[in-house]
């Protein structure tokens, strides 16, 4: 099978195949496969420790899987650590605890990737960075340091930082889990706008309202494997496994009946 | 020829090791003097009136701002003679190193006393304990425990500073090494041996103090350091 050609023809942006990852004796991922087409949003759900974050980190090789392959737009990402920078530039990542660069103000956080990695000249980088901050509604906070921003603002800056690199796909690793409840909305709104604007996104989250209204597909991971997957409608109303229903109920209890 | 040199070096080791006794004496004496002076200085700086604490601040600023070598020269060749004190090189070095160490130790203890907070003092006074007793029986036992890491650092610095007593001819490790080096024409191995002696003393002492810290630790106490 010529995946490279097939992916290109079918509009598959990211293909993940049979990913295995072990920490010590603990097998976190036991053969996970999925793919995402251009403009789609996949939401990954699952209990903590189920391997969701590890899966995201495997995609841009922040964690190297022992087994399995990953393709980005038909090019293999795995086993090409020399060119990893080029892939990472095309895979935007948003972390649970923001990981904004603490010594740089908001706009410099957004432009540093352009300057250091893409070698863009400073003036152009600044223009793009301001544009991205405007997109997430933070141009007035451009000169504030991370310590001076609220959690929600930090996360929006970190989304702008990833977007500035003009990525093909965005990975979100529980982007609202570290936020106070009243700050979650502003971040989800930015993400929703992005999805509507045609960004390809893989989102690990517990926000079922977001999953229901935005996802094209939901993947439920349990014990390092995909247990269930399908459209939100299918997973919320007619999951293949009883376990999936239980999990969704529990999440609704924990995080409150979600909006809409 | 080579064999003879090795023999010379070998024979010089006991001579160097006798310097070890002197070095340990210098460090022990100076640490002790610094401790005896440093504690009341710390107390004076925290609890004393502004004249006392101002005076102590000046002392600290002076002894921490000057090089050890300059202080050694100033006291040994200058002040001690000016005041007609007939002191040996060893005693002079212990006194000068001790006066310097007092400045540093007082700041270690002061930091610890301050970190204990006013609550302990208020609780003691409210029990009717006199301020002076409260310092001795409530504040100091806690402060000294937290001071051990800082104190261990001071030991390491003082140990290395003790080599500067070479400048006034105290027969410590380095002075003896210099003697042997010029006599055997083999300075490299001799100075290396003396470096190793100091390194063992430095880390050995620090390790011992870490053990002491563990031993006198009160469960759940001082974790914030």
């Amino acid at each position, binding site marked *: 099978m010529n995946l490279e050609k097939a992916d290109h023809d079918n509009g598959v942006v990211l293909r993940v195949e049979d990913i295995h990852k072990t920490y010590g004796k603990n097998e976190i991922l036991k053969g996970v496969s999925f793919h995402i087409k251009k403009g789609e949003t996949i939401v990954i759900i699952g209990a903590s420790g189920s391997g969701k974050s590890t899966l995201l980190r495997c995609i841009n090789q*922040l964690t190297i899987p022992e087994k399995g392959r990953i393709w980005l737009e038909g090019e293999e990402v795995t086993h090409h650590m020399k060119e*990893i*920078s080029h*892939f*990472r*530039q095309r895979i935007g*990542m948003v*972390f649970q605890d923001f*990981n*904004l*660069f*603490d*010594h740089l103000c908001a706009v410099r956080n957004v432009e*540093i*990737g352009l300057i*250091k*990695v893409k070698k863009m000249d400073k003036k152009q980088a600044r223009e793009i960075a301001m544009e991205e901050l405007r997109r997430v509604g933070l141009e007035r906070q451009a000169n504030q340091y*991370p*310590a*001076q921003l609220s959690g929600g603002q930090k996360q929006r800056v970190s989304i702008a930082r*990833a977007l500035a*690199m003009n990525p093909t796909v965005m990975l979100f690793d529980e982007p609202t889990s570290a936020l106070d409840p009243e700050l979650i909305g502003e971040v989800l709104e930015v993400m929703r706008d992005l999805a509507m604007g045609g960004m390809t996104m893989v989102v690990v989250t517990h926000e079922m309202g977001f999953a229901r209204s935005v996802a094209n597909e939901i993947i439920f991971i349990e014990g390092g494997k995909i247990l269930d997957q399908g459209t939100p409608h299918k997973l919320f109303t007619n999951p293949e496994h009883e376990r999936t229903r239980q999990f969704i109920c529990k999440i609704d209890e924990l995080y409150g009946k979600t909006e809409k | 020829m080579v064999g003879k040199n090795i023999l010379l070096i070998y024979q010089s080791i006991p001579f160097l090791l006798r310097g070890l006794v002197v070095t340990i004496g210098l460090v022990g004496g100076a640490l002790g003097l610094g401790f005896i002076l440093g504690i009341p200085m710390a107390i004076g700086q925290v609890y004393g009136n502004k004249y006392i604490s101002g005076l102590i601040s000046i002392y600290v*600023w*002076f002894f*921490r*701002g*000057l*090089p*050890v*070598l*300059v*202080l050694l*020269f*100033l006291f040994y*060749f*200058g*002040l001690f*003679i*000016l005041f007609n004190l007939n002191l040996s090189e060893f005693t002079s070095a212990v006194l000068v190193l001790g006066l310097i160490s007092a400045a540093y130790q007082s700041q270690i203890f002061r930091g610890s006393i301050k970190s204990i907070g006013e609550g302990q003092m208020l609780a003691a006074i409210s029990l009717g304990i006199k301020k002076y007793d409260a310092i001795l029986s409530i504040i100091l036992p806690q402060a000294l425990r937290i001071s051990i890491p800082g104190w261990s650092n001071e030991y*390491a610095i003082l140990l*290395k*500073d003790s*080599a*500067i007593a*070479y*400048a006034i001819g105290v027969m410590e490790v*380095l002075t003896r*090494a*210099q003697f042997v*080096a010029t006599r055997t*024409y083999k*300075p*490299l191995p001799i*100075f*290396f041996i003396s*470096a190793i002696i*100091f*390194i063992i003393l*430095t*880390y050995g002492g620090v390790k011992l103090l870490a053990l002491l810290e563990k031993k006198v630790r009160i469960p759940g106490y001082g974790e914030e350091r």
Partner: protein
Amino acid sequence: MNTMHFITDILFPPLLEGLGVTLRLIVYSVPFGFIAGILIAVGRVYGNKLISTFCFLYTLFFRGAPLLVQLFILYFALPSIGLYLSSFTAAVIGFILCSAAYHSEYIRGAIQSIKSGQMMAAEALGMSKIQAVSSIILPQALRRAIPGCSNEIIYLVKYSSLAYMVACVELTGAGKVIASRYFEYTLVFSIVGIIYLIMTSVVTIGLNSLERKMEIPGIGK
């Protein structure tokens, strides 16, 4: 002899000359010692096993042995293997090597105190490890290390006096020469002492204001 006359005419000219040497010792040693300290810290944290072990042993030796012993090795012992250094060069090299070891420990501690997410985020943007260390980790770590490194620089100002022990006639040495010739130890070393006090105080004030200038909300302490 008139004391004022002694101070202005006999003491000051050589002291000023010595002060010049002291300042040169400090100016040459501080930046190189600091840069070497950064390299050793980075090697210790991010280097492979060989480099990391070397950096560890380096700091172990240079922080464990007295500076004076190190200076003696450079000045008195190296000629025995055919390496002759002038007393000034030996002193500068000794100061650089020794202060690098102390700086590196402050910097290493600061590097290790930075959350791993910073490195991860930098790599996720496509930065190489070197880029991430130089433009993300170090700018933060060095700010956190400023208080420790400042202390080390102040120490160096004082310990520059040890250069005299390897025959480099700097401020203390110049004072010693005059003091023994005129047997005026108390007076001479009081004046020498005041000069050091001024130097250490000025450097302290300077470094404190640098620290304030470099301050970024949320970083440091």
